[in-house]
């Protein structure tokens, strides 16, 4: 995820202090990993240098840095470009799961046990996410859903693999 | 898609649309076929009856053209009718008076003396082992058969026998002999006109039988409609437009009904082969008589398919077929009453002017009667959906679960429920109207004869006999096996003048025991004379001392004119009906009082008592009577006599009504099973969460009972109105005999209950959990 573009995007609604920016970011997107303040400082310096933000004012007293940042026209264009740019789909081709299944078959171990175990593990995580979704707010739910759909995709692939295990066994051992 | 190709596509779906497609088509076709067969049969019946009537007229002795004098071209005919094993046999004795004597229709040559020509049916009885007694009675040699032209139906028993005694008998007793002289058989204008009231009855029967058949055909066309709708939805998905879908549906209906038309014609032709073997009462016709008039047949051929298409399109009116399924108008328009009242009111309006017309045997305009009655009955079909909806809407869903399920279902689709009961309701309404007409007419057409079969079982008229002949004939009867007793009464007519008397006086002659069969005698010994009191009015006052004459001369008849004086000791005696039910009037005399009068011709009648356990006794007595004189017709006494025409009409109605009810019951069953099958999944789900079988069975029962009760109530109402109007038309007082009305309604209800009962086992089968398995 591009932290620079995310911070720029947050500035579009109005000028903010560096500390505000960190808080806003954490609230919306930093569920698992909150930003370090140093990261915010470094990113803002880069954006300032590139002319995408400007300093709107400095407050006296309080913390060491009480700069207020505002987005420039170039910054707005940059955010627009980023939003328009599609993300590269991740094909997951070299999945560990696939490696494990093939290896299990090659070494004569039962693949269906492996699949069952993996499904149980996936489901355990999915239950946690479902539980969190139930108590969380809308953004929580959206984030959890994203993860749930990915996990579901894994499991669907697992189901399909399970259904085709016989065929696969024959191919791998040939 | 062009109009034609859509129709053709529909027809192809109907015929080649897989198992489901053709079962539906077959169901429709069989339904329509049965209806068409019934339609064709009913349209053919008037023709058949008139063909039969024409043959009857042709062979009967004409009243006109009876020659007074004999000639080379005259034929003498004597009536020698009889019955065998209770079945009537038409018999004629023939004696030609010259070489050019006419020959009856169906006969190639007149039979000579002691010869006879017989109908095939009579021949087979004569040839059978059971025909021994009949062979004895008809001791003539069979020389030929009577062809179809001389017979009313293939099962009619008839013979023409040659005789050489008719001429002398006719010469001896003139017209009194009952022998007619004819010059030709092709009589015109002597047609026996059917009574206008009976004609009205027949017309009404047609309407009453045909209306439910029409309703039935409409129902048959809708068989499997819901599945068809789903198939049409699938067609919409692959691109058929709404009108195209409708045309495809029309094509399907057309295919089904045309197939039904073919099946119906086949059913009809097959059924016709058996017509000759069926006798309704004495009514029996040749298969080729049952020939629908081409115009009516064509009308059926055109009306049935177009009605099928019409009904289909009408049924599709409330349905929107979308590519993804069938949408039924969720809140159907509430039915309005006013236009539904129009048909019955119009019907009443057409019938009202005919009221009182039948009193003096006036005729009815048939078109007006048919349209009026049909409109009144259509009123049932028009009003029933409205009535069911109106009542069901007000029904509370309180009470048990089964009641709630039934009421809610009725509220949601009251039209279906009404449609299911329509046929039954129309049939019941018509039957009730007829029932009323029948019970009113029955009193007139079914007469109590007054005969008392406990006193005598047969009446044998013996003719004018001399005392010697009389004793011999009585002995013959008494010696017949199975006869346990006889009572013989003589009757004579006395004049007040020796020639051309103005006032005849009846006289009954018999022993004291025999006279006590016709009057309450205070006391009696031979030689007594009584004056009958309380009999049919004898306008001639008989006074003691008055002089009366036996066998007075009349016109061309030269009598002996034997005088007889009414004795002074004549006493009054209260009459009682004789065993045949007649009241004697005039003088009752014991033989001693009229001893010398026995030289004049006296007509003797013997009442015979039979051994009730001897089944052949009747035929033996008939044999003995025929041996005495084949021209005097002995008969079995019955307490009720029915006019033949009336009995035929009534029997025809019962057969037709039964056929119609069975037909409607079958269509009801098919529709009910269809409905149940469509709810298979729901039924399984209901069973899964513990619904009892009885709950669902009751709900099905309520669901049919409620509309049926309403239908029967409406049918009874309209039936009573129609019946009352018909009675007023025939000029009879309007009375309601509630028992047959209730019985008719009960029969309609019974059919529905039977159908419901028959649909319960399939319901229980559908309630098994297999329905939950997803496909």
């Amino acid at each position: 995820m591009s932290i620079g573009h995310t911070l720029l995007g947050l500035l579009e609604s109005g000028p903010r202090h560096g500390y505000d920016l960190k808080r806003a970011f954490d609230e919306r997107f930093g569920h698992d990993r909150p930003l370090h303040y140093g990261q915010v400082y470094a990113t803002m310096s880069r954006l300032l240098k590139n002319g995408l933000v400007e300093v709107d004012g400095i407050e006296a007293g309080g913390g060491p840095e009480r700069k207020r940042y505002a987005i420039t026209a170039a910054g707005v264009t940059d955010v627009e470009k980023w939003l328009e740019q599609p993300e590269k789909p991740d094909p997951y081709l070299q999945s560990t799961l696939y490696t494990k299944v093939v290896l299990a078959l090659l070494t004569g171990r039962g693949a269906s046990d492996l699949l069952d175990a993996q499904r149980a593990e996936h489901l355990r995580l999915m239950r946690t996410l479902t539980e969190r979704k139930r108590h969380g707010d809308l953004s929580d739910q959206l984030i959890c859903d994203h993860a749930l759909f990915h996990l579901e995709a894994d499991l669907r692939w697992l189901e399909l693999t399970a259904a085709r295990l016989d065929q696969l066994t024959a191919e791998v051992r040939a | 898609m062009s109009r034609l190709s859509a129709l053709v596509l529909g027809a192809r779906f109907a015929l080649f649309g897989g198992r489901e497609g053709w079962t539906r088509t077959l169901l429709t076709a069989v339904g329509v076929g049965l209806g068409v067969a019934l339609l064709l049969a009913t349209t053919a019946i008037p023709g058949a009856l008139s063909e039969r009537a024409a043959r009857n007229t042709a062979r009967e002795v004409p009243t006109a053209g009876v020659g007074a004098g004999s000639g080379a071209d005259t034929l003498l005919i004597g009536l020698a009718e009889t019955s065998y094993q209770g079945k009537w046999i038409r018999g004629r004795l023939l004696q030609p008076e010259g070489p050019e004597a006419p020959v009856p229709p169906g006969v190639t040559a007149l039979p000579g003396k002691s010869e006879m020509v017989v109908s095939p049916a009579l021949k087979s009885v004569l040839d059978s082992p059971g025909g021994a007694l009949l062979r004895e009675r008809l001791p003539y040699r069979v020389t030929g058969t009577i062809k179809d032209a001389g017979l009313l139906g293939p099962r009619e028993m008839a013979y023409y026998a040659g005789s050489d005694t008719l001429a002398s008998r006719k010469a001896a007793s003139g017209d009194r002999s009952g022998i007619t002289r004819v010059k030709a058989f092709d009589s015109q204008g002597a047609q026996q006109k059917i009574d206008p009231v009976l004609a009205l009855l027949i017309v009404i029967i047609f309407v009453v039988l045909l209306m439910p058949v029409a309703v039935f055909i409409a129902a048959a066309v809708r068989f499997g409609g819901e599945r068809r709708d789903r198939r049409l939805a699938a067609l919409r998905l692959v691109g058929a437009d709404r009108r195209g879908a409708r045309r495809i549906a029309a094509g399907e209906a057309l295919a089904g009904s045309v197939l039904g038309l073919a099946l119906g014609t086949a059913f009809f032709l097959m059924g016709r082969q058996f017509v000759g073997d069926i006798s309704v009462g004495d009514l029996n016709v040749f298969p080729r008589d049952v020939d629908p008039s081409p115009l009516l047949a064509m009308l059926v051929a055109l009306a049935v398919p177009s009605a099928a298409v019409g009904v289909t399109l009408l049924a599709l009116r409330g349905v929107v077929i979308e590519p993804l399924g069938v949408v039924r108008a969720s809140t159907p328009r509430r039915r309005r009453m006013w236009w539904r009242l129009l048909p019955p009111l119009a019907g009443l309006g057409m019938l009202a002017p005919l009221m009182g017309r039948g009193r003096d045997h006036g005729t009815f305009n048939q078109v007006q009667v048919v349209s009026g009655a049909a409109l009144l009955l259509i009123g049932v079909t028009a009003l029933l959906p409205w009535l069911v909806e109106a009542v069901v809407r007000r029904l509370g869903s309180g009470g048990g679960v089964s009641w709630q399920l039934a009421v809610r279902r009725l509220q949601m689709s009251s039209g279906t429920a009404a449609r299911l009961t329509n046929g039954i309701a129309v049939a019941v309404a018509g039957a009730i109207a007829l029932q009323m007409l029948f019970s009113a007419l029955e009193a007139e057409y079914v007469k109590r004869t007054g005969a008392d079969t406990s006193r005598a079982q047969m009446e044998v008229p013996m003719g004018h006999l001399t005392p010697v002949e009389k004793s011999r004939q009585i002995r013959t009867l008494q010696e017949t096996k199975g006869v346990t007793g006889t009572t013989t009464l003589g009757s004579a007519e006395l004049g007040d003048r020796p020639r051309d008397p103005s006032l005849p006086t009846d006289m009954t002659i018999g022993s004291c025991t025999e006279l006590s069969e016709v009057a309450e005698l205070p006391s009696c010994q031979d030689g007594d004379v009584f004056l009958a009191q309380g009999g049919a009015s004898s306008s001639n006052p008989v006074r003691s001392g008055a002089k009366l004459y036996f066998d007075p001369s009349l016109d061309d008849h030269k009598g002996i004119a034997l005088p007889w004086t009414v004795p002074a000791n004549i006493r009054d005696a209260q009459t009682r009906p004789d065993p045949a039910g007649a009241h004697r009037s005039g003088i009752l005399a014991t033989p001693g009082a009229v001893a010398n009068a026995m030289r004049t011709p006296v007509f003797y009648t013997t009442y015979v008592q039979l051994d009730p356990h001897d089944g052949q006794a009747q035929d033996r007595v008939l044999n003995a009577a025929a041996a005495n004189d084949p021209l005097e017709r002995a008969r079995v006494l019955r307490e009720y006599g029915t006019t033949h025409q009336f009995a035929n009409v009534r029997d025809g109605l019962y057969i037709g009504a039964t056929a119609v009810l069975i037909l409607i019951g079958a269509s009801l069953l098919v529709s009910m099973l269809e409905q149940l099958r469509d709810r298979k999944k729901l039924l399984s789900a209901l069973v899964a969460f513990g619904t009892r079988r009885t709950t669902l069975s009751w709900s099905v029962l309520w669901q049919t009972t409620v509309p049926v009760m309403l239908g029967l109530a409406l049918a009874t109402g309209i039936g009573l109105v129609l019946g009352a109007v018909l009675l007023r038309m025939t000029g009879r007082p309007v009375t309601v005999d509630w028992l047959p009305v209730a019985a008719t309604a009960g029969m309609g209800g019974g059919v529905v209950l039977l159908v419901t009962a028959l649909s319960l086992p399939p319901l229980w089968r559908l309630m098994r959990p297999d329905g939950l398995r997803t496909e």
Partner: protein
Amino acid sequence: MMSGGPLLVARELRKSYGPTPALDGAEFSVRTGEVVAVMGPSGSGKSTLLHCLAGIVTPDSGTVTYDGRGLSAMPDAERSALRRTEFGFIFQFGQLVPELTCVENVALPLRLTGVKRREAERTALHWMDRLEVADLGPKRPGEVSGGQGQRVAVARSLVTSPRVIFADEPTGALDSFNGERVMTLLTEAARSSNTAVVLVTHEVRVAAYSDREVVVRDGKARDMTLERTK
């Protein structure tokens, strides 16, 4: 939540429809208040297992024990009574009586057990309120959306306060949004009233609402909790 021993236990279930076995030695158990997902590919025997557990069909062999009583030995009337009073059912579709209103549909199981109409409909409305469909009361099932209809069905399954709810692909005909909503409401209601749920589904995201899953494959089902207690 996982209080007490198993409420409903099935051992060694076998059931064939014709020559093909639908169940071939299946094991299953559910405790009071527990939500168990029955998973597996289509045609694996999930629904047959559910039908056997609920006493709708009788297995060819094996035992189903509910609350210490053997279901197979019960006469049909008694099993029907059990389904009316102790069990609740949700199916994929086609389960609401189309001519009854929604509230009447929900009240139906209560009325089948003999509760008076007014009282039954009051209770029904309470449950419809919990499932957020109280305003659909006077409408007919044909007039509500699929998701709403399924919530009405859930309310109906809960209305008798059953101890076990059997749900066969309850979200099968719904989109994921409505499906998730129905699952949330179902599991919340079940958990709060300590009702066990046997949830047949092939969707993992639906199964994620369960406490535990049992996988059926080729008519065989292995229940880990049973293996542990063996």
